[in-house]
């Protein structure tokens, strides 16, 4: 049950990989942490992915141990399906007003057995599977969700009561209400993450209307072992695609969309998906249309070279437009730069848009933290203090501070926890004094 007021050292907002890592790094040092996640499970975008570059590790194998560590950590209090609505500051730090949204399920008795799910007659398109699959109105968010607790999607529930009758633990509670509570903390880490370019962003690419033009997150789900089809099939007719094209920078480096920056991850995830597809569909032709291949991370360029050796076709060209023929095959109109910039039309069975990363949360109204022009959280000293926001005591971690891949997010999460720890130490006179009155340089340079 949610208490009315809890007191911790640091509040972490967001339970994706960055928030989890920041929370773990602080909790492992002995600091008390409250982790607040607005979705019903932690795991963020990362838990939706199939495999991760450049190691091609199974993504679940990397993410689930961290999710479980967060849930079981003695120094972390986890609040899922919960949002911060306002904060106040006093001389002790911050008081955050949190709102626990009702799951309509008693989490203390729910065992995650899914009997409610089996009993529920309502199917709802599932955002976790990018709407290709469905969940019931009463459901556990996904198979590796943490916590493994059901909730009821009240917008779609018909109040038939079947879940209530099916629940062996008598956990369904339609009378649950929103529950406000307070979190007192001395520091805050914002790890609110990103969202991807919406499907209707680009008219030239069909504005989300073409069945066989999907975004890369859809392809992640198609490739994931836990995915909706368990196989790569094209959505319009369930056919195995023979020819798949990736359109890079579909949402980044594009002034018409107001997104001038590079999203950093799209080259690598496209190459990774291309490799996974050629494993799943060895006969399929895969083309990647790009402006610049930006495989800059550790081991990334080598990964790109492997993909080239595997026969994946890389075409330097700007895709101007995608049309659809009468068989719902996407036709890509592209300026082939390496061939004297001639414009050609090429048909594929399926096109994957390498969509970009967009900011998804403006912390200004609640946290008083401004964003930069790109919409991501402003860090005034971008090089020397990449996690420090304008607001003392509030730090930023992961993609809330701009597009980055998982490795960079995890490293920045560690940095954010270092900043927060330093802030906690400097602002706790009872514990120890870091500042010293002597200015004696302990530098040896023996003559």
């Amino acid at each position: 049950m949610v208490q009315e007021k809890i007191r911790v050292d640091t509040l972490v907002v967001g339970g994706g990989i960055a928030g989890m890592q920041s929370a773990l790094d602080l909790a492992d040092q002995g600091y008390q942490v409250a982790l607040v996640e607005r979705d019903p499970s932690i795991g963020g975008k990362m838990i939706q992915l199939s495999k991760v570059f450049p190691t091609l590790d199974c993504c679940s194998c990397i993410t689930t141990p961290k999710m479980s560590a967060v849930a079981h950590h003695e120094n972390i209090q986890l609040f899922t399906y919960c949002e911060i609505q306002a904060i106040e500051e006093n001389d002790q730090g911050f008081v955050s007003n949190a709102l626990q949204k009702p799951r309509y399920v008693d989490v203390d008795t729910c065992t995650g057995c899914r009997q409610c799910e089996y009993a529920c007659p309502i199917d709802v398109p599932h955002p976790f599977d990018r709407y290709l699959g469905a969940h019931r109105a009463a459901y556990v968010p996904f198979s590796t969700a943490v916590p493994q607790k059901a909730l009821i999607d009240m917008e779609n529930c018909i109040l038939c009561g079947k879940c209530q009758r099916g629940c062996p633990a008598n956990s369904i509670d339609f009378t649950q209400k929103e529950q406000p509570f307070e979190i007192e903390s001395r520091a805050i880490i914002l790890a609110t993450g990103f969202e991807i370019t919406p499907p209707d962003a680009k008219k030239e690419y069909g504005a989300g209307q073409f069945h066989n033009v999907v975004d890369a997150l859809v392809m992640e789900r198609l490739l994931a072992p836990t995915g909706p089809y368990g196989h790569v099939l094209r959505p319009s007719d369930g056919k195995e695609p023979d020819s798949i094209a990736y359109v890079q920078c579909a949402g980044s480096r594009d002034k018409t969309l107001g997104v001038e920056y590079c999203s950093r991850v799209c080259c690598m995830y496209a190459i990774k998906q291309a490799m996974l597809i050629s494993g799943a569909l060895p006969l399929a032709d895969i083309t990647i249309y790009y402006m610049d291949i930006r495989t800059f991370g550790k081991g990334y360029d080598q990964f790109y070279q492997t993909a080239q050796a595997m026969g994946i076709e890389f075409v330097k060209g700007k895709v101007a437009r995608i049309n659809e023929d009468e068989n719902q095959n996407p036709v890509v109109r592209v300026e082939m730069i390496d061939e004297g910039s001639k414009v050609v039309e090429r048909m594929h069975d399926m096109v994957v848009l390498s969509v970009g990363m967009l900011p998804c949360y403006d912390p200004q109204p609640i946290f008083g933290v401004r964003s930069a022009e790109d919409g991501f959280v402003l860090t005034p000293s971008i090089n020397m203090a990449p996690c420090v926001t304008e607001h003392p005591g509030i730090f930023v971690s992961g993609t809330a501070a701009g597009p980055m891949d998982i490795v960079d997010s995890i490293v920045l999460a560690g940095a954010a926890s270092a900043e927060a720890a330093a802030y906690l130490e400097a602002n706790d006179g009872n514990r120890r004094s870091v500042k010293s009155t002597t200015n004696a340089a302990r530098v040896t340079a023996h003559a």
Partner: protein
Amino acid sequence: MATEQPSEELKILILATLSGGYAGADSVGQLHADYATNTYILPVECPALFPKEFYLRTFKKGIDGIIIMYSGTDCPYKGGAERTAEIINETYPLMKERGMDTRRLRLVAICTVCTQPFLKEVTQMNNVLQEIGPVRQELSVSQD
């Protein structure tokens, strides 16, 4: 549909790594996928722990098939996967010497969400066991 059980249960021991196969078996459970009940999964940190003799005596005790579901290249221990493979390769000739069908022992990489491969391995081992029968038969024929 109830799984058809042979009159004397042919037992499959599954040695599954906590970081791989064991978690994979839990994922299969999450899916409520059905498989045969003659499957006994024991968790292991890394199967490189087991010497060849362990497998031989386990067969002798009456386990008819052993599937080692290790973490393969995802093995968190340096050299663990390679060493496991070495030991298994050295075990096969010893099984042959004792008149055992080497298909009774199988090493396979299973990850935390490898649900289909898990089910496939269990089914395959059961098919093999249906074909070759209990291990005791083989061992009683041989001089061991």
